[in-house]
């Protein structure tokens, strides 16, 4: 990037894509001038909202104030906080984590010098100034870049312009062992609720669920040290998920297709048995 400082304005108003955001945040970690400028421009951007104020419905206040009772405020930053590490097989040359471009990550707080407590594992790799990077352009025009951070013992795969896989197919990640065998990378089947929301009205097309709509919970589940997946969160009944809940992979019915066959999908269900159970 020729003049990275020039991104400060766009960054301050979130007018950057995820790749630019990660590079700029990497830059911010070592540029106090840009940090100060971003902070000052954010003061201005915060005031832009004054020109668009709209009173929300009263029910939202209740939802927010009851929501916070289920969320634990983060404790103040302490030095040397734990970083989640998973035991990798010693035979693997590099463990690769798929980065979901476009999924909202941890909020960058330029006011702290040591921001590692609030960065996701992906961000920590992407922002390691000593990380190595290898890029490849694929025949279909997509690019794939592996960013490898020996310090973090992790690597992140970032793809751009990767086309949607054909119907019924998914992308699968394979790793090469030192003996040059290829092994599939199995993601963990357990994780924690990273954030969640409820869907209270039938989503518009292309939603293909049953005509008769039942509200459901959905959210992002963090598979520790791996990825954050978007998923249904069944099994809460009349209760609500809480950020941090331990959940595990399950299969749930989704709909019935025209041939009368049941269509299923994946979901993550609370591991704890105290959540009120649903039929499935």
């Amino acid at each position: 990037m020729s003049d990275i400082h020039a991104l400060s304005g766009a960054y301050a108003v979130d007018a950057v894509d995820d790749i630019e955001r990660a590079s700029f945040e990497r830059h911010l970690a070592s540029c106090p001038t840009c940090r100060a400028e971003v902070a000052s421009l954010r003061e201005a951007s915060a005031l832009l909202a004054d020109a668009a104020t709209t009173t929300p419905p009263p029910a939202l206040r209740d939802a927010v104030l009851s929501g916070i009772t289920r969320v634990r405020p983060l404790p103040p930053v302490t030095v040397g906080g734990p970083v989640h590490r998973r035991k990798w097989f010693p035979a693997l040359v590099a463990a690769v984590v798929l980065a979901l471009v476009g999924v909202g990550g941890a909020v960058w707080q330029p006011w702290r010098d040591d921001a590692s407590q609030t960065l996701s594992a992906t961000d920590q790799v992407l922002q390691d100034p000593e990380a190595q990077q290898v890029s490849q352009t694929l025949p279909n025009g997509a690019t794939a870049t592996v960013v490898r951070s020996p310090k973090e013992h992790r690597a992140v795969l970032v793809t751009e312009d990767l086309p949607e896989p054909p119907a019924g197919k998914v992308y699968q990640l394979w790793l090469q062992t030192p003996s040059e065998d290829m092994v599939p990378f199995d993601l963990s089947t357990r994780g924690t609720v990273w954030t969640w929301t409820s869907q209270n009205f039938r989503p518009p097309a292309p939603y293909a669920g049953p005509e008769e709509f039942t509200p459901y919970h959905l959210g992002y589940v963090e598979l520790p040290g791996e990825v954050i997946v978007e998923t249904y969160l069944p099994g809460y009944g009349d209760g609500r998920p809480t950020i941090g809940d331990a959940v595990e992979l399950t299969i749930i019915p989704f709909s019935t297709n025209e041939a009368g066959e049941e269509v299923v999908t994946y979901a993550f269900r609370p591991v704890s048995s105290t959540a009120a159970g649903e039929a499935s």
Partner: protein
Amino acid sequence: MSGRPPGESPGRSAHGRIEQVDEKPRHLEPADDGEATSGGRARKGDQAALGELLRRSARGDEQAFAQLYDATSARVYGLALRVVRDPAQAQEVTQEAYLETWRTASRFDPAKGSAISWLMTIAHRKGVDRVRSAEAASRRDTSYHDTNNTVEHDSTADAAETAFEARRVRTALKGLTSVQREAITLAYYGGYTHTEVATMLDLPVGTAKTRIRDGMIRLRDALGVGGDRHE
């Protein structure tokens, strides 16, 4: 910076914001449904008060957080509505923003930024993430793009724009060049990336980010904020 007593520099708060001089009347409450404090806010002492509420929220003080909500919800929801446009999604974005604010309140450092900037940074990011992920999900949805490729003037914002601060912001925006203003409008209220803004405004690739930066610097200086923050 935060150790300086308020009276030391005439007209400046502890965070360096230029106070409104006394001969200007206090702004009118925006006409709304009468909800007690959602629209009412005084610049003087505003930031110090919000900072205190955020500090207390970091310790789990739900009452303090409720007051923070009441003082800021119209701004957060209004912004969410401008960015995601759909009221139901705007409510969800607002809720996510406040939950994230509650969760990360201990990370707020008043020496390095105002509470409102902290909150609105979270809110804006949540809105932009939502609108971009919705776009990715309904890729090539023509109707969505059709309604979003013009620089609009939101009538909801016009109706709510009775507050003094809103007039102040609009006046400051008028001091920008039209390209700067359009670029910032598309970027901030539209949630577009600078490369998308360049395309939408027929600018050479890479120039939108300069327009945005120059415009934001002018805006910052016109509004008299963030000027004395040092690293």
